[in-house]
């Protein structure tokens, strides 16, 4: 049973083509990590999946329905705003910069969608929100505003907010890239726990260890294309494509990378 199917998906901004013939199948319950250099189209692919961006050609299916259109016989009717909003409910999104609603407390952030979109009673939604915050380890911060939370805490609230909508698939757009190094672990831990519940997850990330441990498959993207797909052991341990080898060479092997970086710092330091 497939949850997300992309067939020949293309997306461009003006003359800049950011997605080129993307073909991808994600099964129900599967956890897929998308890795690749910045500008490779990871984020855009995720944004197309929940229709923050419109694809230019191909077709993109989420949980059996074509995104953005209704099929009438041989023809397509573009969905209106309300129908798109309805379709988006099947995908939850966690953003790189958290995007918590800054005028609402953590609990209100989580409860807003259920009350306004799912028409839950405010009381029930508040109770559910508290339980979700408990799951991400932040029940004690229920009354805190986003500005009073650390980046890691904000991102955990954002995960709870996405979960509150009971989506079929969760999309993570580089969820730890905007975090201080010491806060990354707490977010990854929560994501790992969420993955273990069996929900479908697609995670654009630079955290190769997370990809290795948690994902069923890893997708490597570069220059708007999917270059290589496979199980994490193979992609990260035995890459075939030269582009992927180069990418892993640049960021992958931690020790070599660290030494390389240290050398770079020394060099730039002495020349200054």
């Amino acid at each position, binding site marked *: 049973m497939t949850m997300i199917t992309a067939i020949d998906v293309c997306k461009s901004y003006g003359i800049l083509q950011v997605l080129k013939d993307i073909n991808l199948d994600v099964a129900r319950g599967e956890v897929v990590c998308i890795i690749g250099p910045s500008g490779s189209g990871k984020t855009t692919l995720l944004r197309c999946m*929940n229709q*923050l961006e419109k694809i230019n050609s191909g077709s993109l299916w989420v949980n059996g329905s074509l995104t953005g259109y209704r099929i009438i016989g041989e023809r397509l009717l573009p969905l209106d*705003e*309300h129908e798109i*909003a*309805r379709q*988006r*409910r099947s*995908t*939850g*999104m966690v*953003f790189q*910069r958290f*995007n*918590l*609603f*800054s*005028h*609402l*407390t953590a609990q209100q952030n989580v409860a*807003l*969608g259920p009350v*306004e*979109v799912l028409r839950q009673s405010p009381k029930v939604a508040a109770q559910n929100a508290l339980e979700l915050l408990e799951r991400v380890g932040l029940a004690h911060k229920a009354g805190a*505003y*986003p*500005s*009073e939370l650390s980046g890691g805490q904000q991102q955990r609230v*954002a995960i709870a*907010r*996405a979960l*509150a*909508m009971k989506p079929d698939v969760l999309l993570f757009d580089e969820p730890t890239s905007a975090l201080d190094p010491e806060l990354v672990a707490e977010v990854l831990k929560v994501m790992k726990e969420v993955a273990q519940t069996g929900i479908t997850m697609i995670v654009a990330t630079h955290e190769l260890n997370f990809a290795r441990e948690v994902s069923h498959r890893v997708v490597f993207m570069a220059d708007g294309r999917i270059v290589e797909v496979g199980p994490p052991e193979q992609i990260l341990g035995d890459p075939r494509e030269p582009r992927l080898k180069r990418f892993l060479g640049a960021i992958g092997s931690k020790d070599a990378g660290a030494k390389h970086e240290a050398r770079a710092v020394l060099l730039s330091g*002495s020349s200054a």
Partner: protein
Amino acid sequence: MAVETLNEPRIGIPAATLPRLNVATATKIRRLRPLRLIQVVLAVAFLAFITNAFARAAIDWSVVREYLFASTTFIGLGFTILMTIVAMTLGLMVAVLLAVGFGSTNFVIRWMSKSYVWLFRGTPQLLQLLLWYNLALVFPLVGMPGVGYRSTVELITPFVAAAIGLGLNSGAYMSEIIRAGLLSVDVGQYEAAKAIGMTRGKTLRKVIFPQAMRVIIPPLGNEFIGMTKNTSLASVVGFGELIFVMQSIYFYNFKVIEMLMVSAFWYLALTSILSVGQFYLETRFGRGFKDGRQK
């Protein structure tokens, strides 16, 4: 340039030679500020001069006192307050519709919103008031086929002309304030709201406007205070607000300055109250923004 290692001081002052001091406990010398003293003296002198001038001027303060709390004054004041509230409410409704219209995906709505602002911002407010008041000269009857018609003269009372004239005009100005407020909210907030399945209307009401208010309120407070005083324009179409009442009085008792002093007092009182209200609104909508920026 020589490469230095970073853990050695560049210049050699041994720490032991520095005096042992604590800025918290050491006795401090008071700085003299001779300029400040001069400023105070000048300000007091100026105030004394003004007070003296007004006390000796040809103003009959007993008349001012007499009319300050007269019932006719309160009637005019009441109508000023009423008109401020009515025109401001109308203006705000127009402004919000326009600001939302600017961001509409429908180009007809966008174009209409822009044209409205162009028209109402491009002509004097006084002119607009007079046009509304004299609407009957252009359209003697107003109404709809099948519903019935009414005489425009009956319909456009001074109150209606002033409310429409002031409201529609201020709406054009305030729409830009609201638009600025909407622009001030991070685009990520729109996206996060979309991502949980909210429509544009709901996003604006539940996510964007509550955050935009923080930016909107200070200039809107300005507009409110401006409107309080702009209602005086309505006196030209015969609406009985404060200035109109004061003028009516000095037309028969010739105490022009006295009456104007009375109205000045009450305008100041009104705008002072509004300033306080603005302060509380800003505190209310500043929730979640405790980052040390100036509120």
